[in-house]
């Protein structure tokens, strides 16, 4: 403790950096020789080729490789979920049957939701980008429990297998929300799917535990809490939610399974249960889960905007603490999903109030990011483009959230396409854009190559246009009263549905282009330099791709990750003696 805290005093002065002994702090003096290590360009040996063969991947405990395996897995799920979405949109081209029957439609929208939420969004940022970047940003060699990390990947796969079994043995048509008593009485293989999601939860919990311990214990010398990259604050807040909320989902799904399998009445009124209790349990997890999905996105956006504005982040503590505030208040707003379900007016009022309260820290972040760009040196590279798209779309998602928090208006809008549009603006327009910003930002570090900037921008534009063409009309038809989860609809809504479907095709083209240029970059992209964006953050002070153990020398952190007013040389410090 003494050694780390001695760094927090910031007593390392510029003159002592040159390689002499440095005395730190007044109380305890520990001599550390530090010197400058410039990253090697185009390393021959790195984490991707340090070990070879399929087995070296499947049995790896390297957080970076685990991150990539997650990336492959969620890419597959995104492809499946996205294809299902296009099928749904195509069916909705006409008010009656277009090409699939009602039961198929119901199964497909259920799968689309369940896959996108549980198998794509929840693990996307923490498990893929978090796994890859968190230890590097901390200056650590790996997460605190590398084997647990690998275990959580396999638990995720097992959960996925259960889901596939469910799909192939009857499927489910409950909606991703599994509302009782419908879910305890309908046909299909609901049990397998709930078990799958149940198992998946453990993967999420273990990742959360791992991240919290790692952030607490494995920070590099000098990396005090006030120099922690905002991405890590985001992941930290997310991990807390993952640990506290996911068990509730697990219990709920277990109770549901017990009801279906053993006929124990918990939620089904026919058995003496209470269906609204299920909704409480479910949203007690699923609302915080919204923040599991979005808070890590905030972290990425902070990194990207600061890097591409070459400027100190505005309101570091406001951004960091508002993530934590959102994480905590986020636990107390679940009832806003149930304003029409029958809660007391008092509960309704409290939930509405807290919902508005949680909106404030979110709004503050948006202003902070804008202020970061002010007087910056802005470069509109692909990650920045995605960050700006995020700002625009997430703001719309946030404002429409305010609309839905307003009680009397929510009574009208609840369970209409307005809600569908709102959460797509938050989840897809916000979170997925943040994920893409992060993926394009750290891509060089992950694979050591660059993607085509031109095609990346073409694709980003198509995704942006497609997204808004798809979901904006849904606000209008929702406000007009088009209910969600409708296979048939009344003729008056057709123009909106057709526009929306066209938008989804544009988006599909955008994502296809993205898949192509990323695969191309993977195979024969041009080599990336160690720090292509000129960032000050720690992960950019090592070679691209990263070495097998991240740092060839223990890094020493003198400045914050956004201290663009300090010379680059001050950011490449490491312990001089070779023991590591």
């Amino acid at each position, binding site marked *: 403790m003494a050694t780390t805290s001695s760094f927090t005093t910031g007593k390392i002065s510029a003159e002592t950096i040159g390689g002499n002994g440095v005395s730190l702090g007044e109380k305890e003096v520990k001599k550390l020789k530090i010197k400058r290590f410039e990253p090697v360009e185009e390393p021959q040996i790195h984490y991707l080729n340090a070990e070879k063969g399929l087995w070296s991947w499947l049995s790896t405990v390297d957080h970076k490789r685990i991150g990539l395996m997650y990336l492959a897995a969620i890419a597959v799920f995104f492809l499946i979920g996205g294809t299902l979405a296009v099928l749904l949109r195509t069916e909705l081209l006409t008010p009656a049957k277009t090409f699939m029957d009602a039961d198929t439609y119901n199964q497909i929208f259920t799968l689309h939701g369940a896959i996108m939420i549980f198998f794509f969004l929840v693990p996307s940022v923490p498990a893929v980008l978090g796994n890859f970047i968190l230890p590097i940003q901390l200056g650590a060699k790996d997460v605190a429990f590398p084997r647990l990390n690998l275990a959580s990947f396999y638990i995720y796969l097992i959960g996925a297998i259960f889901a596939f079994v469910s799909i192939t043995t009857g499927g489910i048509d409950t909606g991703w929300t599994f509302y009782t008593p419908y879910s305890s009485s309908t046909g299909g293989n609901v049990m397998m799917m709930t078990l799958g999601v149940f198992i998946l939860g453990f993967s999420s919990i273990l990742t959360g535990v791992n991240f919290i311990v790692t952030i607490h214990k494995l920070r590099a010398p000098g990396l005090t809490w006030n120099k922690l990259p905002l991405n890590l604050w985001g992941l930290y807040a997310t991990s807390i939610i993952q640990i506290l909320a996911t068990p509730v989902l697990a219990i709920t799904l277990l109770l549901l399974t017990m009801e279906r399998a053993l006929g124990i009445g918990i939620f089904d*009124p026919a058995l003496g249960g209470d269906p609204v209790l299920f909704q409480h349990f479910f949203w007690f997890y699923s609302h915080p889960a919204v923040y599991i999905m979005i808070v890590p996105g905030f972290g990425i956006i902070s990194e990207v905007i600061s890097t591409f504005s070459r400027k100190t982040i505005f309101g570091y503590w406001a951004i960091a603490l508002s993530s934590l505030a959102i994480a905590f208040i986020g636990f107390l707003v679940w009832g806003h999903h149930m304003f029409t379900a029958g809660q007391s007016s008092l509960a309704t009022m409290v939930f509405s109030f807290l919902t508005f309260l949680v909106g404030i820290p979110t709004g503050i972040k948006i202003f902070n990011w804008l202020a970061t760009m002010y007087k910056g040196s802005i470069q509109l590279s692909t990650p920045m483009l995605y960050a700006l798209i995020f700002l625009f779309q997430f703001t719309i998602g946030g404002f429409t959230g305010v609309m839905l928090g*307003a009680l009397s208006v929510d009574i009208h809008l609840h369970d209409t396409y307005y809600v569908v549009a709102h959460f797509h603006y938050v989840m897809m327009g916000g979170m997925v854009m943040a994920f893409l910003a992060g993926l394009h930002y750290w891509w060089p570090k992950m694979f050591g190559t660059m993607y085509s900037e031109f095609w990346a921008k073409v694709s980003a534009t198509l995704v942006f246009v497609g997204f808004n063409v798809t979901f904006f009309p849904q606000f209008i038809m929702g406000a007009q*009263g088009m209910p969600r989860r409708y296979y048939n609809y009344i003729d008056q809504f057709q123009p909106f549905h057709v526009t929306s479907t066209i938008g989804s095709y544009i988006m599909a083209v955008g994502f296809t282009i993205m898949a192509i240029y990323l695969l191309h970059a993977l195979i024969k992209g041009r080599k990336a330099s160690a720090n292509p964006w000129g960032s000050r953050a720690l992960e950019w002070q090592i070679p691209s791709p990263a070495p097998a153990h991240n740092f060839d020398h223990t890094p020493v952190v003198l400045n914050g990750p956004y201290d663009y007013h300090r010379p680059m040389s001050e950011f490449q410090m490491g312990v001089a003696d070779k023991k590591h």
Partner: protein
Amino acid sequence: MNRFQDFYLPPAKSTVAADTDALFNFVHITSLIFLIGIVAAIFYFVYKYKRRSEHDVTPVITHNNALEITWSVIPFILVMIVFGWGFRGYLNLRTAPTDAYEVRAIGKKWLWEFRYANGFVSVGELHVPEDRPIKLIMNSTDVIHSFYVPDYRIKRDVLPGRYSSVWFEATEPGESTVFCTEYCGTAHSNMMAKVVVHTKEDFETWMATAALADAGLPPVELGQQLVQRNACQTCHSIDGSALQGPTFKGIFGRQQKMEDGTVVTVDENYIRQSILQPQSQIVEGYLPVMPPYQGTLNDDQISAIIEYLKTID
């Protein structure tokens, strides 16, 4: 303004709609102002502070208390206005006037049934007078449904094993659509009904005739009316085509194979049983989705339906 509003909101046909719409517009316009500001700032910054060279030096601006307090407090005040306004509207939506006219509403897969004080039952149509508060006492016989009338800006979940209620006061005669907005399975999106608003006098006449209308009809005609009124045709055709349920064409005397393998001949008792407790015997190749009409149809009505079914071939 009104022309514009017609584009994104349904017509306002209840006493509470105006307040909800006003709040809706308030939030929209305020949001729009903020959004325009944010987008303008993005464009301006991207253009004005475009990177000139790799050696650009940027100022160190870590925070600005005055600015930060402003942009926390102003949104806070705004959302508190929205909160208070919304809550007041909500309380109004929740508290039905004491003199409200009560109608029972029952949601079942996949139809809405309404029962009036005089014992009359209508399926798929709710008849109400204008300018009079109506309170629906609702429950479901199977899963959760939700009663939604966009024109009135009202919605309330309809639960099995529990009563819930919703009230409204229609301001003009005419028709409005009722949707089910809680996903309830295969024909969820067909679970619609309409509210028919009569003038006060018309409503009285309707009430008086509706209850008596059936009395004088010959059984076959009555049966035909009941089949229509109870929405049997959403699942049963009379032209031989199979919808969600078997066709009524030639149903009487038909040999019907059941899921459990037995073969029955369709007679009066079988039809009666099929209508009252459809789940007790399921026809092979069909799903157990027919709602039970126990309590909805009385013996005379069922007999009339049977007589009508005999005539379809």
